[in-house]
């Protein structure tokens, strides 16, 4: 961005000021003091960044009146526009901005911001548009973005500032761990940790306290137990005394009764219930006697009932035999049924045998049935070979007959097959001979071939005729082709004609060529027509020769056909039909040839079979004759056939089997009958032996006796046996009852005797003769018993009263008649002791409870665990902080190495450039400008290689340094694409002539590199120096002539010497001493004599309130609170 025109409508002292066509390089303006140079610079700042409050206060409203504001014409790259900023009277804010392009487009401040490339006003004021004040303020490192940027830009800018990183790490490390006395995270955590450990140590004594309490509680428990035992004893004593007092009357009464009873000792003692016992004995004796009499009567009744039962003893004695017979009853009954069944079966079989014999005799042709019974099986066996012989002969004959019939049928079939072939051939008039039929087929095939050849020749002849017609037509050229050929010929002739006849025509100039083309066209048409017609004629001739050859072939074929027709007996039908019939007939004849051979063979076999049939017939007749002769010999009918005989023979064998079965049945029946008779005899005998014959049988006659039967007799016997058995059981039962009654009766009688003995013994023991004396004695004893009871009751009362408190002897001593008077004092003394002991016990219990409470509170105390948890957290945080410090220290270590390398070898390009400018400005006296990267300071190396801090430089040299740095920064901005005009307002005022001349040269060279500079000076010789450098130079217009009353310059320029002292004097409480000009000797500077004593750091001091953030101080002052006087990180040299 470059400013081409400046127009001030009204600003400060200026009104209607117009500066046009400013140079894109350096323009030097001369203006005397109060000419408005600074106002002009402020105007540029105001148009670009607005009317700040400070500028409004100082420059607005315009002193000469008019519209406040103005405009700048700017060229930025290829874009040119005018920026105007105006402000109304009394208006606040930056003012209204209007941008107008060359094309007349207007807009806001967007173009302006783009042209400024986001360089803020502070940076612009301190870098680009600087006056003498600003250039001196740089040394104070005020808290401005420009100052920071200046150092950042000059101190190794990467993506971030190494300076920022190192400073950030240092602050972060200091936050973690600072010197003793300063608060930092790690030291705070360590303090917390130590405090927690101390608390834990204190808490660790809880166990001992708890154990001590437990021991003390144990001791108290023992004391309490002892006290309780003592209390118990005292209570017991007091209770004894108390009971003794209460017992005194009863004790004395008991003593009196005891003495009375003692006097009655020696008398007979009867039981207290002696009378009741005696009465009881009497009643028991009477009761037993009654029971014994009753039982005796009952036994008599049972004996009589047993005699009434009437038991047959014989039957009872034979119980085993009766039982065995009873078990045979079913068998006996079964034997009866078996005998009947076997008899009926035998009868039936015998009946069937008789009827079957009659039927068989009739079939065999016997005249008498008895004759059959005379024939035995041996006779019949003799007929068996004859039967088999006859059956074999019949079978053989039938087989021969079937074979003969089969062969004859085969012969007939073959004959029919041959006959059918013959009949088919005769129907078509074909020869019956196979050879003739074969010749006929061959002739017919040749005839068909000739016919086929004739048809093909005729078709070929027709095609040739058609081809000949087409070739004949091709000899004539088509009309369209002829037209084209004619046209080509005519055009060619015309071209040739025009060449010959009209040489001046358009074709005349190319006459030769045109004529040649015309001739070629005509010749082509003629030759094309000739060759076409000639080729068609040749092909037509060939066609005619082929047709002639075909005619000859047709005639030859027709001759062959006539010849074959004459040879073949063709009567009707087409050749193909006949050929098919002949071929079919030939196939039939060829198929009949093997059949004829088979027929002849079959005929021979039929003849042989017929002879075998006749022979078998003879054999059959002989066998039948032998059979009939044998039948006659046995008396059988001769008509009986062998097959029939075999079936009859089976029936005869069945008859024999039937006869055998009938005989067996009859034998079984007789055997069963014998067994039945044996059993019946055993039953009858037993009945007689046991006198159990039925009464009916004894009374009836013999005929009626048989009516009863063996089973009835047996049933009678068994019924009698069961009745007797029941009677015996009844008798045994009665006997058992009688025995039991007898035993009970005996018991009663023994009891009576025993009771009488006991009664007598009682009398004897009491020395009584009878019952009356005994009862008298009992009355006497009852009176004595009453006295004892009263004594015993008193004893119980005494015993209950003293119970377990003390033995009776103790009370006997207390209630002794001689000591009974001391009971009351003794009671009072015991009560007092008891109260004292109870108080002691209560105190012990209270102490124990308090200790238990302490123990419980100790057990519930979780503060130990809470402290441990806190401690673990603190230790973890401490470990994290510890590790974080290490990490940051490690990063710092690495960055320190990088920083040292940068400082030594790789100062930023900006500082290198500044060094060049500084060398040019100082005539190589100061050759290097550099900065320790960890501090916002600049150092300058002189030609002796010494690094000097800024504050030791003279004011002029310092301003040369700051100008160098600014030029370098502006160049750096330019390299980054930010080109802004540089306005220098009297910045060379403190330069001597030589330095000013060098400065003018440097600035002109700088402008020649593409930077626009507007230099204001109040010194004409300086202005002339720029003139001598061929720079564009202007005098500012006389504002007094242009505008109204004269105004004072906003602020008088500070005197050079004052300007030097001012910033330094404000910085520190003990300011750095200004060094004498022009160059301080090396020995005059403490930092040079003791380089390690200088350090560059930040200190918050009084200047902080005035806006100064950081400043340079001697190390001894800056680190006054540090023992060694320097930061552990910073270089110990200047």
């Amino acid at each position, binding site marked *: 961005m470059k400013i081409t025109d400046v127009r001030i409508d009204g600003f400060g002292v200026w009104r209607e000021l117009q500066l046009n066509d400013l140079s894109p390089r350096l323009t030097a303006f001369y203006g005397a003091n109060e000419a408005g140079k600074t106002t002009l610079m402020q105007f540029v700042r105001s148009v670009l960044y607005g009317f700040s409050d400070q500028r409004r206060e100082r420059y607005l409203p315009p002193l000469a009146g008019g519209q406040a504001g103005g405009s700048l014409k700017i060229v930025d790259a290829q874009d040119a526009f005018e920026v105007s900023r105006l402000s109304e009277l009394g208006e606040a804010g930056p003012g209204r901005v209007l941008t107008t392009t060359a094309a007349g487009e207007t807009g806001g401040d967007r173009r302006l911001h783009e042209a400024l490339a986001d360089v803020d006003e502070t940076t612009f004021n301190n870098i680009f548009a600087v006056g003498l004040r600003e250039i001196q303020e740089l040394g104070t490192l005020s808290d401005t973005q420009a100052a920071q940027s200046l150092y950042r830009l000059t101190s*190794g800018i*990467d*993506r*971030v500032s*190494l300076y920022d990183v190192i400073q*950030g*790490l240092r602050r972060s*490390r200091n936050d973690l*761990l*600072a*010197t*003793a006395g300063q608060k930092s995270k*790690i*030291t705070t955590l*360590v303090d917390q940790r130590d405090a927690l450990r101390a608390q*834990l140590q204190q*808490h*660790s004594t*809880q*166990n001992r306290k*708890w*154990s001590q309490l*437990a*021991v003390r509680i*144990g001791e108290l428990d023992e004391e309490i137990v002892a006290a309780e035992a003592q209390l118990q004893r005292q209570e017991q004593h007091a209770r004894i005394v108390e009971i003794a007092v209460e017992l005194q009357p009863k004790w004395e009464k008991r003593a009196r009764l005891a003495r009375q009873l003692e006097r009655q000792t020696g008398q007979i003692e009867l039981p207290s219930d002696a009378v009741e016992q005696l009465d009881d004995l009497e009643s028991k004796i009477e009761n037993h006697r009654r029971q014994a009499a009753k039982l005796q009567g009952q036994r008599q009744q049972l004996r009589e009932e047993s005699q009434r039962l009437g038991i047959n003893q014989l039957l009872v004695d034979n119980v085993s035999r009766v039982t065995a017979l009873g078990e045979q009853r079913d068998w006996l009954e079964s034997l009866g049924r078996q005998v009947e069944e076997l008899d009926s079966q035998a009868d039936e079989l015998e009946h069937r045998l008789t009827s079957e014999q009659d039927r068989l005799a009739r079939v065999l042709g016997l005249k008498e049935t008895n004759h059959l019974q005379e024939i035995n099986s041996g006779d019949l066996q003799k007929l068996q070979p004859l039967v088999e012989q006859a059956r074999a002969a019949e079978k053989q004959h039938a087989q021969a007959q079937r074979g003969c019939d089969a062969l004859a049928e085969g012969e007939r079939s073959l004959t029919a097959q041959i006959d059918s072939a013959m009949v088919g051939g005769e129907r078509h008039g074909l020869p019956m001979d196979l050879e003739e039929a074969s010749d006929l087929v061959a002739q017919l095939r040749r005839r068909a071939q000739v016919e086929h050849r004739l048809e093909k020749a005729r078709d070929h002849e027709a095609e040739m005729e058609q081809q000949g017609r087409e070739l004949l037509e091709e000899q004539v050229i088509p009309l369209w082709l002829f037209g084209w050929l004619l046209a080509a010929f005519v055009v060619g002739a015309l071209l040739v004609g025009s060449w010959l006849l009209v040489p001046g025509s358009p074709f005349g100039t190319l006459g030769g060529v045109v004529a040649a083309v015309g001739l070629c066209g005509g010749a082509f048409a003629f030759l094309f027509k000739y060759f076409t017609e000639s080729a068609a004629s040749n092909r037509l001739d060939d066609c005619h020769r082929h047709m002639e050859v075909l005619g000859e072939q047709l005639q030859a074929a027709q001759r062959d056909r006539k010849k074959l027709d004459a040879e073949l007996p063709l009567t009707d039908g087409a050749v193909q039909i006949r050929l098919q019939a002949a071929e079919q007939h030939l196939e039939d004849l060829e198929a009949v040839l093997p059949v004829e051979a088979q027929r002849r063979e079959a005929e021979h076999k039929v003849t042989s079979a017929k002879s075998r049939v006749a022979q078998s017939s003879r054999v059959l007749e002989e066998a039948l004759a032998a059979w009939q002769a044998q039948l006659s010999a046995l008396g059988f009918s001769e008509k009986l056939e062998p097959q029939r005989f075999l079936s009859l023979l089976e029936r005869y064998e069945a008859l024999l089997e039937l006869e055998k079965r009938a005989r067996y049945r009859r034998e079984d029946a007789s055997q069963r009958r014998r067994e039945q008779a044996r059993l019946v005899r055993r039953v009858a005998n037993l009945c007689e032996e046991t006198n159990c014959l039925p009464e009916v049988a004894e009374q009836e006659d013999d005929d009626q006796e048989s009516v009863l039967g063996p089973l009835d007799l047996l049933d009678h016997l068994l019924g009698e046996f069961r009745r007797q058995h029941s009677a015996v059981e009844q008798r045994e039962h009665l006997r058992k009852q009688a025995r039991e009654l007898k035993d009970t009766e005996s018991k009663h009688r023994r009891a009576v005797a025993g009771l009488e003995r006991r009664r007598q013994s009682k009398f004897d023991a009491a020395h009584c003769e009878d019952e009356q004396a005994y009862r008298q004695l009992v009355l006497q004893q009852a009176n004595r018993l009453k006295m004892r009871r009263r004594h015993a009751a008193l004893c119980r009362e005494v015993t209950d009263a003293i119970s377990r408190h003390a033995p009776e002897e103790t009370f006997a001593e207390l209630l002794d008649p001689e000591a009974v008077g001391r009971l009351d004092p003794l009671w009072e003394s015991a009560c007092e002791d008891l109260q004292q002991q109870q108080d002691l016990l209560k105190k012990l219990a209270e102490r124990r409870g308090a200790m238990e409470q302490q*123990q419980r509170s*100790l*057990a*519930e*105390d*979780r503060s*130990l*665990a*809470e402290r*441990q*948890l806190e401690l*673990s*957290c603190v*230790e*973890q*945080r401490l470990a*994290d902080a510890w*590790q*974080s410090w*290490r*990490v*940051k*220290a*490690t*990063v*710092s*270590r*690495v*960055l320190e*190495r*990088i920083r040292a390398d940068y400082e030594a070898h790789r100062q930023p390009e900006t500082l290198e450039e500044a060094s060049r400018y500084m060398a040019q400005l100082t005539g190589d006296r100061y050759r290097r400008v550099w900065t320790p990267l960890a501090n916002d300071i600049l150092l300058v190396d002189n030609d002796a290689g010494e690094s000097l801090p800024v504050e030791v430089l003279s004011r002029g040299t310092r301003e040369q340094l700051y100008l160098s740095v600014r030029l370098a920064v502006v160049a750096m901005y330019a390299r980054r694409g930010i080109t802004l005009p540089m306005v220098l307002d009297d910045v060379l005022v403190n330069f001597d002539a030589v330095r000013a001349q060098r400065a003018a040269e440097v600035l002109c060279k700088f402008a020649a590199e593409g930077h626009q500079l507007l230099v204001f000076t109040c010194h004409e010789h300086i202005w002339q120096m720029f003139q001598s450098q061929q720079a564009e130079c202007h005098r500012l217009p006389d504002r007094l002539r242009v505008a109204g009353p004269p105004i004072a310059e906003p602020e008088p320029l500070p005197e050079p010497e004052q300007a030097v002292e001012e910033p330094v004097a404000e910085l520190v409480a003990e300011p750095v001493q200004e060094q004498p000009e022009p160059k301080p000797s090396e020995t005059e500077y403490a930092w040079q004599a003791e380089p390690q004593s200088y350090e560059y750091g930040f200190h918050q001091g009084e200047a902080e309130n005035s806006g100064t953030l950081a400043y340079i101080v001697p190390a001894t002052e800056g680190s006054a609170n*540090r023992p*060694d006087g320097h930061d*552990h*990180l910073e270089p110990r040299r200047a």
Partner: protein
Amino acid sequence: MSQPPLRLVHASDLHLEQPLAGLAEVPEQLHELLLEAPYQAARRVFETALTEEADALLLAGDVVDLERSGPRAVMFLLEQFARLEQHGIDVYWAGGRADPAEAWPPAAELPENVHLFASGEVESIALERDGQAVAAIQGISRSQGAALDDSGFYRDEDGLFTVGVAYGTSAMPGAEGDRVHYMALGGQHHRQTVDQSPGVAHFCGTPQGRSPRETGPHGCTVITVDGQGQVKTQLVPCDPIRWLTETIEITASTDHRALHQQMEDRLRKLRARHPELALLVSWQVHGHGTLLYHLRTGGVSDQITADLRRCFGRDMPGAWTVGIECDAPLEVPPEWFHQETIRGDLLRQFQQLEADQQSDLQLEDFLPDDLRTGPLAPIATVTGDQRGGLLLAASKMGIDLMDGDDL
């Protein structure tokens, strides 16, 4: 070998005196649980013995350091021992480093069911059921400052199943269980079976993990001995709060939002898997990509950690993110090492320091002078095993700073 079936519960390293550690800050909702976790875990051990109807509880040392626990632990143990006594369950306690036999206060008398083994030589006690010996329990407590003499362990001569209880042994690794059928060992916080044959030697581990290194489930071991003398061990988790270390692999395309999302997804799954447990989750990030430079304390890790704690750490039981660690080596583009920038210089410097293991980092230069000889002086001393991790963390921070990030 015919043997009555047995059921034993093996526990050790209850460390009632140790609340959980390793957290730089304790959230309020977890404070109570962190304090009570050792006691809750121990209570679950005793309840396991009751619910399993165990024949005996074996305590293999480091139950409690009474010097650091206070009387509360004593009362707690007496109460739990009394519960077991009511159910007829014996306790066999072998003292360890923290709880030698002589440390138990004489004033607190142990119930009769508790057998605290003496130190010096192995003591053998018959475990009886219905008046009949079913196993032999042998044990020895550790003496202060003396090695454990395990020569007294031997298998019962009558063929009884023999259990040894000790705070570690001096046997060779893998031979700890050679003398008895089952060796109940203590002194190791991680569960491990160190010998299988001929006898089993088993460390049951602590019932509650105490630090981020003690991850995974912790509890006691239920030992089941069948009729053939076969031993089967089963872990019964007892920890009410569990440390977990989750590993996440990232790729070159993973940014911090994607990583955050992955962690959220993983935490949701963990919550679903352990709905009743409070979780303390440490993250290990591996993989590739530029995100590795920024995963450091004070970097993106802190931001993700704060977000995860806010989303998942407020509930109870929640999943509290302990921290995010990234030990993956740096994978910077090779051209960075050759760039003439401060970052290039930085990388080259770190490369040189890593290559030269003998070079001194000279961190003491950064210590304030008055601290160079005090108790904080070791902060500047970097041991060999710390050097690699320190350089990695420093290089990450350096690259991060060169990217313009704040400290």
